[in-house]
């Protein structure tokens, strides 16, 4: 009677044994990788917008303040997107015939709003509030990246809960003085450690409670 298993069966059996140990971990690793990949987080993905609005031009080159368009960023959870009228304050005078601005002119003429694609999308159970972050020394570019260099806006941070918590556990490295909140050129100074201790006291930030679930979820 011939042997049932050929010699190579030993190898296969060993591989299977190893795989039984390794593959679950690989799968978990893969799941984590997918979860953190830009495919899931939307990081670095550039969306197609009805008007190719360039922050690089408006912020970087012209130096328009963030709050000129995002008017409610200091008052509301939502930073605000400019109404068509805001675009037309300038564009009724300049680039009046530019083809890329046709949707803006059309919006005003027909009184139909422009439908922008949301770039920074948080899940519905996260109650993020712009105004409190602005009030507590977190600058725009800390989360939104160097918008003054972006021809089309994209999400530079992963916006995962772990990323939020990094800062909620230790906001010090990111805190700015009130005058620098809207600055696009702010870099942590060499003495950020000492500065941030002063700022933490000034802003009355108590990190011990910033990780309560009820701070962001309700």
């Amino acid at each position: 009677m011939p042997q049932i298993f050929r010699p190579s069966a030993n190898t296969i059996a060993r591989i299977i044994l190893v795989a039984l140990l390794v593959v679950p971990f690989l799968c978990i690793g893969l799941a984590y990788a997918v979860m953190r990949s830009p495919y899931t987080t939307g990081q670095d993905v550039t969306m197609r917008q009805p008007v190719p609005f360039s922050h690089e031009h408006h912020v970087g080159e012209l130096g328009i303040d963030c709050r000129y368009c995002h008017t409610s960023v200091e008052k509301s959870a939502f930073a605000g997107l400019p109404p068509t009228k805001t675009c037309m304050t300038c564009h009724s005078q300049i680039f009046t015939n530019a083809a890329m601005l046709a949707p803006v002119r059309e919006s005003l003429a027909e009184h139909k709003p422009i439908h922008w694609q949301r770039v920074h999308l948080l899940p519905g159970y996260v109650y993020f509030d712009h105004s409190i972050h602005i009030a507590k020394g977190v600058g725009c570019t800390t989360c939104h990246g160097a918008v003054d260099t972006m021809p089309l806006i994209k999400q530079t941070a992963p916006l995962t809960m772990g990323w939020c918590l990094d800062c909620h556990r230790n906001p010090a490295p990111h805190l700015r003085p009130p005058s620098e909140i809207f600055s696009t050129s702010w870099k942590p100074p060499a003495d950020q450690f000492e500065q941030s201790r002063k700022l933490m006291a000034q802003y009355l930030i108590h990190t011990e409670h910033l990780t309560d679930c009820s701070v962001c979820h309700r």
Partner: protein
Amino acid sequence: MSPVNDLNRRAALKLLGGGLALSLTSCGKPAEEIVPYVDQPERVVPGVPLRFATTLDLSGYGRGAIVTSVEGRPIKIEGNPRHPASLGATDVFAEADVLGLYDPDRSKAVRGKANVESWEAFADALRAQMDKERARGGAGLRVVSGRVTSPTLARQRAGLLKEFPQARWISYEPVADTNEREGARLAFGRPLVALPRLKDASAVVAFDSDFLGPGPAQIVNARGFAQARSAASGAEQFLRLYAIESSTTATGANADHRLTSRPELIGNAVIAIAAYLAGETPPPLAGHAARFVEAAAADLKARQGRALVLVGPSQPPEIHALAHWINSALSAPVDLIEPVDDIDPNGLTSLAADIHSGAAETLIILDANPAYDTPPRLDLAAAIHKLPFSAHLSLHRNETAALCHWHLPLSHTLESWSDRRAIDGTASIVQPLIRPLYDTRTAHDVLAMLGGALTPSSYDIVRTTWAAQGGGDFENWWRKTLHDGVIAGTRSAPVATKPQRITVAARTPTQTMVLKVAPDPSVWDGRYANNAWLQECPKPLSKEVWGNSIVLAPADAGHLDCKDGDIAEIEVGGQRVQGPARIDYGQADGVIAISLGYGRSRAGAIGNEIGFNVYPLRTAGNPWLIDNVMLRKAGPARPVPTTQHHFQIEGEVDELLPLVSLVELAKGLDRKPFKDEPKPTFYPPYVYDTYAWAMVVDTAACIGCNACVVACQAENNVAVVGPEEIEAGRDMHWLRVDTYESGPGAMRGFQPVPCMQCEHAPCEPVCPVSASVHDSEGLNVQVYNRCVGTRFCQSNCPYKVRRFNWYGYNDGQEYKNLGAPSVTAQHNPNVTVRTRGVMEKCTYCVQRISAARRDAEKENRTIADGEVVTACQSACPTRAISFGNRNDPKAAVNKKRGETHHYELLGHLGTRPRTTYLARLTSPNTALKEGGE
């Protein structure tokens, strides 16, 4: 829910396969758009709610409200502190009005006999008809409306009657105070309205009067009642309430002494009180009733100037007249004012006669539903049907709409410009929060159309009414009036007049069955039948939901061998009504009690065929008390769903809801639950170094009105589950009001039970996925996203305050039409809408705490006391709920916690609840045994 339960094996496998395939192919986040304004209105800041004052209507009377609107959608109604009928609080109907706005069953278009028509088509038809009427001075024109308190509507009515002198305007209300008005006419010679100032009273005797029950005066009465019963007021000032009633009411449940009595004997008790005050011999009363009345009369006399009697609508006019004399003799704290409206009790009878005789030809019905809520003996339904021209303006295509040629969609109160007077005469403007969702118009618009206007504007019509105000600066006056929500100086001045004493003969007790009808605490007279929040709101005493029942005394039920839930039949003069029986030990023998408002056939998807309709038994004579009723058993049990036995907590009633008399309170309380040893614990020591939120509920002030329950539902997106799920014990209310009895028929009191937010919470350690966690301010936070639905927390909660989403009550498996997009527009954007399989519970309105915390931190300060007001606290008419930071020694909540009669519910379990209670205070008369009988 049935689609899931009815699945067979094949269908389940199909769905499973389909689900797997879809989940593999449909990864990726859904795209989301941001759509900014083209031209942003000036004061709109996206994400920041706006609040506007307006006025809500209940049976024609106004209650002031402040409505929160997010991104143009009104989502929450709260009271207006400046308004005398709101005093900053609400009632169930006010809270639920916002759901009525988004009701998917609302009428959306003009309808002719067969088709959808346009307002223009109606205007054409109307013009032709009105030309005909104008030629004969309006001899055939009849306008039917509810109670008219609106100064603008009254002005338009006067204008219309001037233009059409022969026309008639009929105002009627199913819940009318005809007996009260007639009684005042007997006593004073004119129909004055009596407004009790309960806060100045220290002895009150209520004769079948449910002054704490639902109605336009509930908030005012409840506030005055609670103020007069505060622990600080002392035994002499503390209001002592005697109630003599034929069925259990909220008033009887809050009384120090309650006596059950047949209606005619209640009338005799009033006669006896009058005799005692006049020093005459009272008519003979039965043993304990005699003692009761004597003790009450002695108390009234002793507290002259601070004593008053109140008589309910079911008593005949003579008894009301006598009560006016008693109050006058007692110098009672009662204001008499001229009525703010005029309801003609015979209006409907003459209307029916006019239609039947052919004198009436053109009928305009403004937001009334006579086909449902008028006595069938008038035969109005058939009469309306045969009219040559009839138009019906209403929120819904209801029973009356089905009979009329034209149905006109009415704008909701939150979409309309109008005005209303409160019970005390104070006028206020009704201001729209949103442009009409559909092509609807207001009653003012339709009246203007009767006068020939083509495109009427109720904004202009209302402004015209008030154009003389403001002393030359109308625009400023108008702006301030809209902002304040009341029109200054419009309150009716009290009339100083003396009533004459009329002699009333005592009646001999009869043995016949009588039927006592009352407005329903959930659906009022039926107009709220299609409101799912109200249908599912457990009624204050019976805890019934989704239906009404025939309430019987145990003896009467025993004669019929009728058990709880058995179908009984009532017959009066050939009209029969069937419904489930409920035995109530507080019911007088021979008295049947039924509430109005059910058995609607065309209310909408929510309200249709719920309960049974008692209107057919009513007569025009005395609508509240129907004599010579036949009662019989008609079928096997089909009980009304009730939440009575859901979420019961284990304990001795004396420790759960202790009663404390003022005498005992003065001596100091040395018993459980007020004195208890601190318990050892295995829990980690938490440090609450910022805020420590705490709530104190004063059960002495709670009248069980349910305003908090509906307010919580509106604020926190609490789902409606429907009657079948309620029967399965799956009620979703985050806040329930527990009702306790001391014995059969003896109500002990009410206890609102939100989450206790225990410091040592039993729910937290049992959660396998840490979905139930503690936060640094002491809240037991539920993380919906982590919850896997083990329900361990629910079974370990001794207070039974956790609620589980057995189905997608909010996400795909909504009850009836509650998943319609218009309903979801009501949702509070700051509260997560929970999905199937998730546990939820009261959060202490964490969204409001968070908003206050962010506001305070932006200004680098701490949250001030009173800055966070929970939804239940804001709604409470008696201010029974206090909320605040326990770490702030000056906080109002700490003052309450320091009271002698402060206690923890189930404190012996060592849970250290943050929600605590004040005991129910009583002021029994030592001359009477505890409990009155």
